[in-house]
């Protein structure tokens, strides 16, 4: 696979769909690839082109990948000043690109950084911005972008559009769309972004300490054990079961709030949506803010001691009982018959 890096040509207003491609340490965020995949579909629907903007340092591998994931054009900005994400510096570069190319639509994956960036850009560009959309569509009559914005705890969506301003912007919740697989037939061109205007004083924030361990994007796990307060903040049993089914551990919001698990494992409207084949939901009551997180799971098994827990109306298989009696038995059963792989 060869990536053709074109020399910078005369800039022109292309319109079309633009996507911010977020990377951390040279690895693309999965949500950016998801948005690129959906961006392709929307661009095709509108008969326009799709471009990605990628900023950072040492990006060779990253831009190689997105060039084959559906973008017609990948604009790359490499600079030590862009090594760490900072809203102000990234926004300065991107608003320059947007003003030059004048896209119709600009999409950003709703990570923490993406959300801050998108909001900043929306103000600078005086553009409408739809938040955390869980669906994107094109309005037939007008060709305008429609975004489904969740609110009120997660069970209600407001179907919104940008009535004024340009481009039409939206941040997209992780785990909703699917990335396109890497393919030769999707090859796009890569162009560098001129960064002359970017100065050290544009970087307003400095990272003075960073500590990152192993992390998991729960929205991409096939099998998940979701631990709720019913496990009384002790994750051992849940972790054991997760291991037995070759899955990962996730938690409900209150468990993370109590400090029993890190916040990036949270399932629900304030966390991630699961797309698993199987989710074992243990000791979770199933309030509205949680239910949106398991909506897209194929098979949901719920165990809770309260027969009236709302979770049971969101599950395929329901068990009322004592977690501390049932789960150890389940672990034994899975062990004795060679587990589930």
């Amino acid at each position: 696979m060869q990536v053709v890096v074109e020399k910078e040509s005369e800039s022109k207003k292309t319109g079309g769909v633009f996507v911010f491609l977020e990377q951390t340490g040279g690895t693309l965020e999965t949500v950016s690839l998801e948005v690129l995949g959906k961006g392709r579909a929307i661009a095709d629907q509108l008969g326009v082109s799709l471009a990605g903007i990628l900023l950072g340092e040492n990006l060779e591998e990253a831009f190689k990948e997105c060039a084959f994931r559906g973008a017609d054009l990948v604009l790359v900005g490499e600079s030590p000043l862009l090594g760490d994400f900072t809203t102000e510096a990234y926004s300065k570069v991107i608003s320059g690109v947007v003003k030059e190319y004048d896209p119709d639509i600009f999409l950003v994956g709703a990570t923490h950084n993406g959300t801050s960036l998108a909001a900043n850009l929306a103000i600078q560009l005086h553009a409408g911005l739809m938040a955390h959309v869980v669906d994107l569509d094109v309005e037939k009559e007008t060709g305008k972008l429609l975004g489904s914005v969740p609110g009120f705890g997660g069970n209600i969506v407001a179907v919104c559009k940008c009535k004024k301003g340009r481009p039409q912007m939206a941040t997209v919740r992780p785990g909703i769309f699917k990335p396109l697989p890497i393919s030769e037939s999707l090859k796009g061109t890569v162009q560098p972004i001129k960064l002359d205007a970017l100065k050290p004083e544009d970087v307003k924030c400095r990272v003075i300490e960073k500590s990152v361990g192993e992390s998991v994007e729960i929205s991409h796990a096939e099998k998940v054990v979701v631990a709720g307060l019913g496990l009384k903040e002790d994750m051992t049993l849940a972790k054991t079961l997760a291991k037995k089914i070759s899955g990962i551990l996730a938690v409900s919001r209150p468990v993370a709030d109590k400090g029993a698990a890190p916040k990036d494992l949270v399932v629900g409207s304030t966390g991630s949506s699961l797309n698993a084949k199987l989710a074992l939901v243990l000791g979770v009551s199933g309030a509205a803010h949680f239910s949106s997180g398991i909506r897209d799971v194929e098979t949901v098994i719920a165990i809770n001691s309260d027969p009236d827990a709302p979770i049971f109306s969101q599950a395929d298989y329901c068990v009322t009982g004592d977690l501390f009696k049932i789960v150890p038995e389940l672990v034994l059963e899975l062990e004795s018959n060679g587990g589930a792989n």
Partner: protein
Amino acid sequence: MKTVLKEEPDFAKRVRDMSGEMLSLCYQCGTCTASCPMGVPVRRLIRSSQLGLKDFTLANCDLWNCATCKLCETTCPRGVQITGILHALRVIGYEEKKSPKKLDEPLWGVYEDANPWRGKKGDRAKWAESLGIKDAEKSKAKYLLYVGCAASFDPRLQKITRSLAKVLSEADVDFGILGEKENCCGDVIYHIGEEGFLEELVQNNLKEFEKTGAEAVISISPHCFNMFKSVYPKYGKMIPAYHYTELLSEFMDKDLLPMVPSDDKLTVTYHDPCYLGRYHGIYEGPRKILEGLPGASMTEMTDNKSNALCCGGGGGQMWMESIGERPSHQRVLQAVDSGASILATSCPYCVQNFEDAAKTKGVLNLQVMDVAEIVAKSMKVEV
């Protein structure tokens, strides 16, 4: 280099005035500290208060580990009302912003959701669904059954509430509930030492109780019962307050509880909740109820009646991190030693703490039940 502790003469006076106690009665024998199940250095707190050392006293965070169980008062050779003194220290401590931060959470809970557990108001009366109980605001009833927060929201404790409601119905008692309108009794607020919000809460509750026209209020939790009996009258006119075991014991006497004869043998031991026993001298009533149940035989644990070992739940402890072994751990082992298969009690906090302790200690053959549940079972009432 000498460290000088600052003496504030007004501090000792204030503690005396608030507690109504002669601080000087305490002659520092240390029996209180020795008998405290929560490891609070009671003697030292009183000593530094006597000396007027406000900052030094309030810096001692052990003050907030007190479960207000009154065991120290039982053993004090001079009869000092120690809980009154500690309460005064907490009030001053709260004012000076020296209370543990995490205790602000139950306060917010009561202020915003009428309960310290962050249960939703709309769920407060879910336990009563399809039981057809009178709404005390709309129809006048003889008694107001005050459920309390823990017994309203916790699924395990709701069984106690339903048991009692059904037993009362079977005995043709005329009672009503406030349902979703019921507000916290304020016990946790009182013990955190907050007085401003407490006053508003109590005044509102007094108005609500009066509006119902009920003759008396019956509580499930001894903590609520104590608030109504001892604290509320200080704020205004309060209707008579009873703990439900007082009513059931009376009904036992009058044969108003139709028991179903049974071949089942129940070996029961009764744990005296601090707020029923040491606070209000109610020891015999619950025992009489249990003894009157078919097939029941009673045993006593060591440390019973006025010496009962606290479960460690009172005085705000349900919101504090446990510091190692809780006294409830020791208590369930005492229950096992007594030969009983059922550890009976009549306080929702005790039930929760003993069930947790039994799990922690791996005690499998001990059932923890509230008196109301055992009565309901003996009456073969479906809960």
